[in-house]
C-alpha cells in the first residue's frame, strides 16, 4: 500500500505536469521523490536547500506572480521554524499556497523533540483563512491535494505515517462511522482506528473528520444529540474544542478534548510508547471516555441522560 508521503509526491508531480502554474518548493526533504520531476520541470520544482524560511517566502513570491505553489517539509521545520513567513508572506500578503507536512506529531520518536510537531495545527489556526486537512488514509491525499492547489486561499495538509485500516471517501464534513446515543465522539485523521477500537461496544456515535478548518459545526449540531462531545485529535489536545463550543453556543454542552499533551515527554522509543504516554492508545482513550461519561453534567436533572 502506498504511504501518504509517496501519494503526495506522485500527485504533486502529476499536478505540476497538468497545471503550468503549479510549482513545488522544498528544502532538502523528499528530494529523492522529486528527482525525475526536477529534470522535467526545472523551473517549477524548486529545492532551496536547507532554508525553510526561504522556502515559504519563495512560495509567497511565486503566488504573488499568479502561480500555485506547494511547499513541503517536516512538520516542525515547515510550520514552526518559518512561522512568521507563513503569517506574513502568505497570510498578510494574501498569497495562496498549499503547505504539506510529513512527520505529524511524533512519527519518529527516536528523533527526539526537535522532530516532533504537535503544535502545528494550533499555530496555523492563528493565520486567517487557512483550510486544514488531516488525512487518515493515503487514498485521501490525492483528492485533498488536487482540491487545494490553485484555490484563492491557503491550505495545510498534515500527512502522517499512522494510517487507518478503514478507507472512507473524502468529505469536507463529519462522516458518521458508528451510531449511538450517549455521546458524539469525533476522530480526526489517523485517530479513527484507535477511536473505533476504544469505543467498541459503547453506545456512542463515532464521526470521522479529515478537514478541521473549517470545522463542520453544522455536523456537530446535528450529531450531538446529548450535547456531549469528545474530540480526539492527533496533535495538541483541545486544538479544535473552541469550534465545538461555537457550534453549540446556544445549547448547554460538555466537551472533552483528547490529544497530545502540552508537557514535553523527554523520551525516545516508539510511536506506541508515545501514544500510550499521551493517552491516545485505545485502552486509554476508553478510560478517558468512561470517566467523562460517568460524570453527570452539572446542570442535569437527577435521573436524566
Amino acid at each position, binding site marked *: 500500500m502506498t504511504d501518504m508521503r509517496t501519494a503526495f509526491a506522485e500527485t504533486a508531480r502529476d499536478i505540476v505536469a497538468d497545471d503550468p502554474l503549479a*510549482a513545488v518548493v522544498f528544502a532538502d526533504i523528499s528530494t529523492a521523490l522529486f528527482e525525475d520531476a526536477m529534470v522535467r520541470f526545472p*523551473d517549477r520544482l524548486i529545492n*532551496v*536547500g536547507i*532554508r525553510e524560511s*526561504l522556502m515559504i*517566502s519563495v512560495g509567497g*513570491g511565486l503566488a504573488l*506572480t*499568479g502561480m500555485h505553489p506547494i511547499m513541503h517539509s517536516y512538520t516542525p521545520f515547515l510550520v514552526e521554524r518559518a512561522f512568521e513567513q507563513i503569517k506574513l508572506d502568505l497570510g498578510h500578503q494574501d498569497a495562496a499556497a498549499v503547505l504539506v507536512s510529513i512527520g505529524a506529531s511524533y512519527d519518529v520518536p527516536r528523533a527526539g523533540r526537535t522532530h516532533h510537531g504537535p503544535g502545528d495545527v494550533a499555530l496555523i489556526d492563528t493565520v486567517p483563512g487557512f483550510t486544514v486537512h488531516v488525512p487518515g488514509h493515503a487514498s485521501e491525499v490525492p483528492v485533498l491535494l488536487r482540491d487545494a492547489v490553485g484555490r484563492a486561499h491557503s491550505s495545510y495538509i498534515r500527512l502522517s505515517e499512522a494510517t487507518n485500516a478503514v478507507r472512507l471517501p473524502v468529505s469536507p464534513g463529519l462522516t458518521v462511522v458508528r451510531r449511538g446515543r450517549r455521546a458524539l465522539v469525533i476522530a480526526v485523521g489517523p485517530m479513527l482506528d484507535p477511536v473505533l477500537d476504544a469505543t467498541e461496544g459503547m453506545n456512542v456515535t463515532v464521526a470521522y473528520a479529515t478537514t478541521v478548518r473549517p470545522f463542520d459545526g453544522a455536523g456537530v449540531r446535528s450529531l450531538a444529540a446529548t450535547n456531549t462531545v469528545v474530540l480526539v485529535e492527533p496533535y495538541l489536545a483541545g486544538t479544535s474544542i473552541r469550534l465545538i463550543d461555537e457550534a453549540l453556543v446556544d445549547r448547554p454542552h460538555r466537551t472533552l478534548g483528547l490529544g497530545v499533551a502540552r508537557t514535553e515527554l523527554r523520551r525516545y522509543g516508539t510511536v506506541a510508547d508515545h501514544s500510550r504516554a499521551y493517552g491516545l492508545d485505545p485502552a486509554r482513550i476508553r478510560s478517558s471516555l468512561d470517566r467523562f461519561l460517568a460524570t453527570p453534567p452539572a446542570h442535569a436533572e437527577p435521573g436524566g441522560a
Partner: protein
Amino acid sequence: MTTRGTRGHHEVMELTYHDLPGLMTLMTGDEKHTPSATSTLDVLWVLYDRILHVTPSTVDAPDRDRFLLSKGHGPAAYYAVLAAKGYLPEAWLDDFGGISSRLGYHPDHNLIPGVEISSGSLGHGLPLGVGMAHGLSAQGLTSSRVFVLIGDAELDEGTNHEAIAYAGAIGLANLTAIVVDNQSSSHGWTGGVASRFEVNGWSTSTVDGRDHDQIAEALSRRHADRPHVVVAVVEPKDS
C-alpha cells in the same frame, strides 16, 4: 510648491523630484523636509522615474517590473514618489496613519495600487523577491525584472542571507537587490555590504546614493547569468 493648486482636481500634472519634500510634509507635518532626511528618497525616485517598466495603468500587467520595498518603515518617501507618479491621489497623504487611510506606517499592498508587497517586519522582501523572480521565469516573462530595496541594518536579518546564497548559487539573473547603506547596522559590515553578495556570485555596484545618474546606471546593469546588487551609500543615519 507650485503644484498644490492641482489637489482635488482630476487634471494630471507631472510632478518632479523637487515636489517630493512638499508631498512628504503632507504626511509628517515637518516643514523642513530635505531629500537627505530620507535615505531611500533618491533611489526610489530614480527607480520610478527612469528604471521600472510599470505605470499606474499597468500595475496588474503580468509582465510589469516588480519593485519590492522590503524596508517598509519610514515609507513617507515611497508614498510621496507614488503620489508624484500618479499611483495614488495626493489627497491620500493628508490622513497618513489614520483609521480611514490606506497609507500606514508600513505599507499594505492590498490597500495601495502599485505596491507589490506589504512590509514592515524586516527581512521578508528579498526572499519574496526570489520567489517572484522564479515565478516570472517559469511563466516565460523573461523581460520582467524584480527589484528589492533593503537597508544595511535590515541586512542583519538572517533570511536575507538565505536568499543571497540561494539566488547567487542558481544565478537568478532577473533579480536586483538595492541596499541603501546609511551605516545604521549596529555591528556594521566589515569588508563592505557588497562583499556579502559578491562572495555568493552576485555582480555588484557601489554608488553614491544621492547621485541619480550613478544610481540609474547601476540599476540598468543586468547580467545574463547572475543576480545584481546595487549598494547605494548615503550619509550615516543621524549625521
